[in-house]
């Protein structure tokens, strides 16, 4: 549940989601769920030339199982907080 909570805190931030098929999409994080499915708003594809069919997609739902990376804003990571949460989770709390 740690990463679910973590991503929930990032809602509203601008992220880039890279998929297993190498498609990279940038957009505002609208929501996440327990499977780490992601909804993005105001999306744009990083390599627009290569994926012309994505031109008119503004909002999208990405299935969690196809995500390779989520690139976060640099200030989106609070390492201290993440450390604490990880320890808590490891203790079973």
């Amino acid at each position: 549940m740690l990463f679910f909570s973590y991503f929930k805190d990032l809602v509203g931030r601008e992220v880039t989601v890279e998929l297993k098929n190498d498609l990279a999409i940038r957009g505002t994080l609208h929501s996440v769920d327990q499977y780490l499915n992601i909804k993005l708003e105001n999306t744009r594809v990083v390599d627009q030339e290569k994926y012309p069919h994505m031109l008119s997609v503004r909002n999208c739902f990405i299935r969690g199982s196809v995500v390779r990376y989520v690139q976060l804003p640099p200030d989106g990571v609070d390492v201290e907080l993440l450390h604490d949460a990880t320890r808590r989770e490891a203790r079973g709390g």
Partner: protein
Amino acid sequence: MSWASAEDIYLSTSLANYLDKKVLVLLRDGRKLLGILRSFDQFANAVLEGSCERVIVGDLYSDIPLGLYVIRGENVVLLGELDLEKEELPPHMTHVSAVEIKRAQKAEREATDLKGTIRKRLEFLDLD
């Protein structure tokens, strides 16, 4: 059982707010389906009405009509709501018939196959 309020659904990853809208579904094998989203569930299984497959080869594209499709969720990569105000494709792309796109697809496949065999034959040269 309690029902989520309309607001909860809007704020969640639920596909409910894409219902009855024209969507683009990207599949794991690279295919692109367009249609009206009529139903879905928690696995992203989805029902598309009036669907078609959009085949793109270079600057050519074609929409091949398919009808009513039930998509198994595990094959879904992405489900995107289409902005009807915006052009679906860049203006330099031309619409061609299903027959023509099939021909273009075949030519492209043969070209990549050929590239593969040439590479294979020259492998002993250690090009990389």
